[in-house]
């Protein structure tokens, strides 16, 4: 019996090639999209879930009301960890984590920069990062010990055994390699190639016991069986005992296994995090799969008249309803199986680009038992879902009616099929408008004047002897004509690293808590960056030695200060009176999507981290780079020369939005495609169904044109309804989306007009093929079929 079903199903597929292709392609795309998104979700959900003790690990968080709102954050004082370990017997282990640091490692002549961190010895006991070599109890005991990953060990020592070897770090301290870590898996939020003991930080004098300096992460491992709730109550008032400045700040432990997906707080409550995006795309995947499934149902039931005869015959020769339901379900499961195979191929091909698109190291584990179980589950579920309606509908036919040929479908004004077309096209139109608006917004922001000249501008971080030799380096770069201008700053031009509401100026009101950014530079800032001066002058230490206490402000700052004549005024910060010598036009250092915030550019009093170099525009960039590298090698021999092009760094500011834009476009295309598949199938069904009517009309003298119009009209009406439904929804959704950006486009009516016309055209193209085909057919043939 099963063989018979399969045979019939298979022959049916072959006989109705176009129908089968529509069904299978539509379904396989739906399945593939779902699979890709599931792979992604599976990755995100699995991040850092492999740690054996993850359910007992907590991260220390603080809570504090500011301006009537509760703020929550996770950086802690360095003294927090030891204090907790000392005071609470429930704690099994504590590790501080001094955010990622970059050091220069040298072995003989080899120099490699690497990112890692400084932790307490408990770290390796708490988190499951296994050691390949070394004793977990002692690897981080000694001040000058370092644990490195397998790959990093290979980079440093090649195939030589690494344990026991000595490396020099930042040219100053010698460390002994005490352990080799297995390389970190892809699915962890940690990113380090080496771990050094906290003792080293102490030795360097970087440790402090200041409760006001909240700058590191602290992880706590509770003993098994500890009541988390009770412990939270206990630890809440920790700062009352120790922190004199802010005794009311609440300390709490956040379950660390939730940090990846959640850990976003608003007013003291966890409000989500990455999980939001995951949910959103999960919903999109479900919608695409459901649209594909309903397409399948629709196409199958649309063909029911053809299958009706078969049902009748089978019933007359003895089939029971159950076996017919089984047969049709079997057929749809077969189709979904074929679609799944095709989907698997699509996934294999599409995974690498999808990986790049979402920017995650995703992989498909085909050896995994769960993968196959899920796959089978999805095939069965989809097959059942897509096949259930046609199966029940078809198997319910009365044989006497269908075999007599009197069987005709009822014509109700609202059929599920029409509703589906409307829904599909509403989704398509919403996505089309979303694509248009996202593209417009991106273009607007990308076209936005950054306010400085990014061409021929590079920066490099100050390392090693750069600070000491800065004057020599600058001198040589300028005299050899490599550079037009050189400026050192506290942060790269592409980000501000410092801000405060502590600036004071004449007439500032007491309650003004506006955040003002601080940019610290030595000299010639407008020349190097190409900033536009509105009033006053650039810093020029040669001509004006007092410029080390001068300031340049941007337009927004002038607006904030609310003064007419900024030049000559002073601003107080860090105990220094900064004299304003210039005003520049606003320029974008942070997000180009937001408005430019007030900024004070301070003169050469404070500390520097970055050197900016404006190349001579006459020279080829490659040549300038090579020459610059030679200069740096001369004055900072121990360190490799690393640099960034400012324009490239600036372009990265658009990455996340570009990604969103690409994903939206992708889903738009897929939704349109699947919707068109469905529409195409329905149009062909309609043409077939009305073949007699068309024949009669033609015999009575209707033209091909009028018949095409007649057949297309019905569908276009549905698309029109879809437009009416979709426009307010997409207007609402996109307004919401745009609200996130201070610098944004206004949604204009023509966006919707364009999306609507686009949808109509696509629908028209899809339908008219079938309509014309039906209209030009010979009426004699169609009338004879009755």
């Amino acid at each position, binding site marked *: *019996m099963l063989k*018979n079903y399969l*045979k*019939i199903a298979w*022959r*049916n597929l072959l*006989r109705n090639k176009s129908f089968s292709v529509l069904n299978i392609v539509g379904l396989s795309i739906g399945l593939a999209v779902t699979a890709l998104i599931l792979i992604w979700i599976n990755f995100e959900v699995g991040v850092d879930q492999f740690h054996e003790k993850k359910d007992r690990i907590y991260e220390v968080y603080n809570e504090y009301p500011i301006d009537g709102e509760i703020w929550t954050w996770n950086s802690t004082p360095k003294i927090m960890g030891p204090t907790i370990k000392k005071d609470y017997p429930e704690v099994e282990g504590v590790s501080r984590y001094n955010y990622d640091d970059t050091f220069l490692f040298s072995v003989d002549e080899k120099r490699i920069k690497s990112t890692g961190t400084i932790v307490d010895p408990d770290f390796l006991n708490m988190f499951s990062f296994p050691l390949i070599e070394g004793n977990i109890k002692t690897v981080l005991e000694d001040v000058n010990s370092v644990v490195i990953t397998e790959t990093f060990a290979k980079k440093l020592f090649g195939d030589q055994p690494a344990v026991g070897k000595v490396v020099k770090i930042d040219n100053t301290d010698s460390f002994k390699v005490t352990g080799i870590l297995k390389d970190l898996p892809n699915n962890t939020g940690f990113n380090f190639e080496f771990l050094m003991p906290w003792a080293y930080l102490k030795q360097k004098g970087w440790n402090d016991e200041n409760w006001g300096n909240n700058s590191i992460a602290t992880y706590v491992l509770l003993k098994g069986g500890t009541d988390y709730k009770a412990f939270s109550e206990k630890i809440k008032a920790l700062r009352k005992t120790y922190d004199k400045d802010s005794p009311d700040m609440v300390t709490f432990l956040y379950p660390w296994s939730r940090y990846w997906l959640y850990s976003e707080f608003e007013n003291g409550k966890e409000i989500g995090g990455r999980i939001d995006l995951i949910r959103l795309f999960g919903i999109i995947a479900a919608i695409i799969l459901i649209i594909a499934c309903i397409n399948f149902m629709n196409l199958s039931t649309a063909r029911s008249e053809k299958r009706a*005869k*078969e049902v*009748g*015959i*089978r*019933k*007359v*020769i*003895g*089939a*029971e309803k159950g*076996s017919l339901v089984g047969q049709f379900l079997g057929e749809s499961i077969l189709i979904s199986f074929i679609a799944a195979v095709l989907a698997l191929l699509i996934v294999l091909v599409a995974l690498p680009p999808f990986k790049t698109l979402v920017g995650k190291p995703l992989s498909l584990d085909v050896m995994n038992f769960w993968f196959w179980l899920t796959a089978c589950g999805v095939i069965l579920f989809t097959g059942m879902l897509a096949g259930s309606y046609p199966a029940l509908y078809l198997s319910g036919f*009365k*044989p*006497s009616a269908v*075999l*007599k040929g009197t069987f005709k479908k009822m014509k109700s004004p609202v059929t599920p099929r029409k509703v589906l077309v409307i829904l599909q096209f509403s989704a398509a139109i919403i996505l089309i408008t979303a694509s248009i608006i996202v593209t417009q917004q991106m273009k607007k922001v990308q076209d936005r004047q950054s306010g400085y000249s990014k061409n021929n501008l590079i920066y490099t971080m100050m390392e090693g002897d750069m600070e000491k030799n800065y004057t020599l380096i600058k001198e040589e770069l300028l005299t050899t004509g490599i550079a037009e201008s050189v400026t050192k700053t506290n942060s790269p031009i592409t980000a501000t690293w410092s801000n405060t509401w502590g600036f004071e100026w004449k007439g500032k009101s007491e309650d003004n808590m506006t955040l003002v950014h601080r940019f610290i530079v030595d000299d010639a800032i407008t020349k190097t960056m190409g900033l536009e001066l509105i009033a006053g002058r650039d810093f020029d230490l040669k001509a004006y030695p007092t410029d080390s206490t001068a300031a340049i402000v941007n337009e927004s700052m002038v607006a904030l200060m609310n003064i007419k004549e900024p030049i000559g005024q002073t601003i107080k910060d860090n105990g220094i009176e900064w004299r304003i010598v210039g005003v520049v036009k606003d320029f974008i250092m942070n997000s180009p999507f937001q408005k430019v915030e007030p900024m004070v550019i301070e003169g050469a009093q404070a500390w520097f981290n970055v050197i900016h170099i404006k190349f001579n525009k006459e020279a080829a960039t490659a040549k300038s780079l090579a020459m610059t590298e030679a200069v740096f090698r001369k004055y900072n021999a121990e360190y490799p020369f690393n640099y960034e092009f400012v324009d490239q760094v600036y372009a990265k500011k658009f990455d996340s939005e570009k990604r969103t834009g690409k994903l939206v476009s992708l889903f738009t295309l897929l939704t349109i495609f699947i919707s068109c598949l469905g529409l195409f199938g329905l149009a062909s069904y309609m043409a077939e169904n009305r073949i007699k009517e068309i024949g009669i009309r033609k015999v009575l003298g209707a033209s091909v044109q009028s018949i095409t119009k007649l057949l297309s009209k019905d569908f276009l009406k549905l698309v029109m309804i879809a437009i009416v439904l979709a426009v307010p929804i997409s207007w609402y959704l996109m307004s919401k989306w745009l609200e996130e950006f201070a610098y944004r486009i206004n949604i204009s009516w023509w966006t919707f007009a364009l999306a609507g016309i686009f949808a109509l055209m696509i629908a028209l193209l899809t339908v008219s093929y079938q309509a014309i085909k039906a209209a030009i057919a010979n009426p004699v043939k169609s009338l004879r079929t009755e």
Partner: protein
Amino acid sequence: MLLQLNNIFKWVNSGGQRIFLLKDINLQVEEGEFISIMGPSGSGKSTLLNVIGMLDTFDEGTYDFLHESVHSLKEKHRANLYKEYIGFVFQSYHLLDDLTVKENLEMPLLYKKFKGSERKAIVADMLDRFNIVGKKDLFPTQLSGGQQQLVGVARALIANPKLILADEPTGNLNSQQSEEIMELFKKLNEEDGVTIIQVTHSEQNAAYGSRIINLLDGRKVEI
């Protein structure tokens, strides 16, 4: 006695009026009879055949088939009854286009859950008996109308029914093919004792039968 219809009424309501499809039909059929139902278009011939074949219900009256009261049986039970004892032959053959001749013949046996070896033997026997062994792997569309109807009759017979119901079995056939099919019916009736009820327009075909029932506007009439 094979079956007995007593005072069968069947109607539909259309525009507030009751239109009778069958009106007070009384009919008794003995085993081994060969009955022809005749009458003009719309007189209720096919409806009567469908009622007898239990494919259609009726609104009033009683129907006994092999001493079972069809009118009081549940749908499923009724289906079992006709599956067991009745074979159908249609004007437009109604073969399954996706299956070969052999597979079409095998179909009813599958639904009756015969074993594979049994099915093979019965199908082979039937192919042989109807002289269509050479056509067994062809699809219905590759056959002529007469050959298709031959397969249709063979399929109706394959499960060994007591009664064959044929709705204008020769309606789509030319005269020579018609004659062949009617001869076949006659042979089945006389040699194998199969009861046959056929609907026909043709006097010539009706003459093969032992009894003629005339219908007019859903009523049995005597001519």
